[in-house]
C-alpha cells in the first residue's frame, strides 16, 4: 500500500461504511480512512492522525450516541476532494450539548478528574477541523472532521 502512487482527486469521491455499534469495529473505519487518505497522497504521519481521530469519533458514536445498541449502526462517510478529506461519523444520538473541558493531566493524576474523557480532545488536536452537529429531532447527529492535504508534502 505504501508504494501505491497517489491519484489526484479532481472531483469529490465518496466512500461510505456502516458499522455495528460494537467496540472494536472502529478499526474497520480506521482501515478505510487510511486507504482513502493514502490514495489521496497524505503523508504517513497525517494518515496516523486521521486513523486515531476517526477511531475516537466512531467510539464516541457507538458509546454515547448509540449507547452500544448493536441494532443501531454508525455511519462513516468519507468525501475526498482535491485538497482535503472530510469524514462524517453519524449516530442516532442527540449529539453533545457542550464541549467538555480540555483534559488536564495534573487533575487526572490527583484524582480530581476522570482519567477518561480524552477522545474529543484527541480528535480536535489531530485534524484540521472538527465540528459536532446535533441531529434534527434528536437523531442523526454527526461529527464532521476535515484533514487537509498539505501541498508541500508532494
Amino acid at each position: 500500500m505504501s508504494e501505491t502512487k497517489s491519484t489526484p482527486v479532481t472531483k469529490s469521491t465518496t466512500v461510505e461504511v456502516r458499522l455495528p455499534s460494537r467496540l472494536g469495529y472502529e478499526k474497520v473505519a480506521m482501515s478505510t480512512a487510511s486507504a482513502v487518505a493514502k490514495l489521496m497522497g497524505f503523508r504517513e504521519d497525517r494518515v496516523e492522525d486521521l486513523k486515531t481521530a476517526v477511531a475516537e469519533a466512531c467510539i464516541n458514536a457507538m458509546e454515547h450516541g448509540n449507547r452500544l445498541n448493536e441494532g443501531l449502526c454508525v455511519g462513516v462517510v468519507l468525501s475526498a476532494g482535491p485538497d482535503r478529506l472530510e469524514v462524517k461519523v453519524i449516530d442516532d444520538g442527540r449529539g453533545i450539548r457542550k464541549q467538555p473541558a480540555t483534559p488536564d493531566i495534573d487533575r487526572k493524576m490527583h484524582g480530581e478528574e476522570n482519567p477518561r474523557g480524552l477522545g474529543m480532545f484527541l480528535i480536535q488536536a489531530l485534524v484540521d477541523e472538527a465540528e459536532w452537529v446535533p441531529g434534527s429531532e434528536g437523531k442523526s447527529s454527526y461529527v464532521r472532521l476535515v484533514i487537509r492535504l498539505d501541498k508541500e508534502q508532494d
Partner: protein
Amino acid sequence: MQAETKSRVEQLTSPAGHDVAVLRFEGDIASTSKDAVLGAYQSIPKQSIKIVLLDFSKVDYINSSGIALVIQLLIEASNAGQKVFAFGLSPHFTKVFTMVGITKYAGLFPSQAEALAAL
C-alpha cells in the same frame, strides 16, 4: 474484533544496579484491556520494585480508553512511590502521549536499552 491484550512482567537489573520491572504489552490497548494493564501492574511488588518500564513495542493500537488505563496505572504507581518509564511507542503514539501530558509523569524512550541506560 479487538486484538486481545497480552501482558507479562519481567524483572531485571539496570546498568546502574536498580531493580526494574518491565511490563510488556502485546495487541491492542483499549477498554477491554483493564486486566492486562492494571492487573499485570498490580502483580509487581511495590516494596522492592521502584522503577517500572512499560514496553509498547508490540502494540499497534491504543485508543483513548487505553490511554486512560495507562493514566490509572501512573496514578497507582505514583501513590506507591514508583517511577514509570515507557519505550517502544510508535512516533504517532509518542505524539499522542505527549499531547495528553503523560510525558510529565512517565519518561518516553525509543528502546529498552535507552530507557535502562538513562535510569
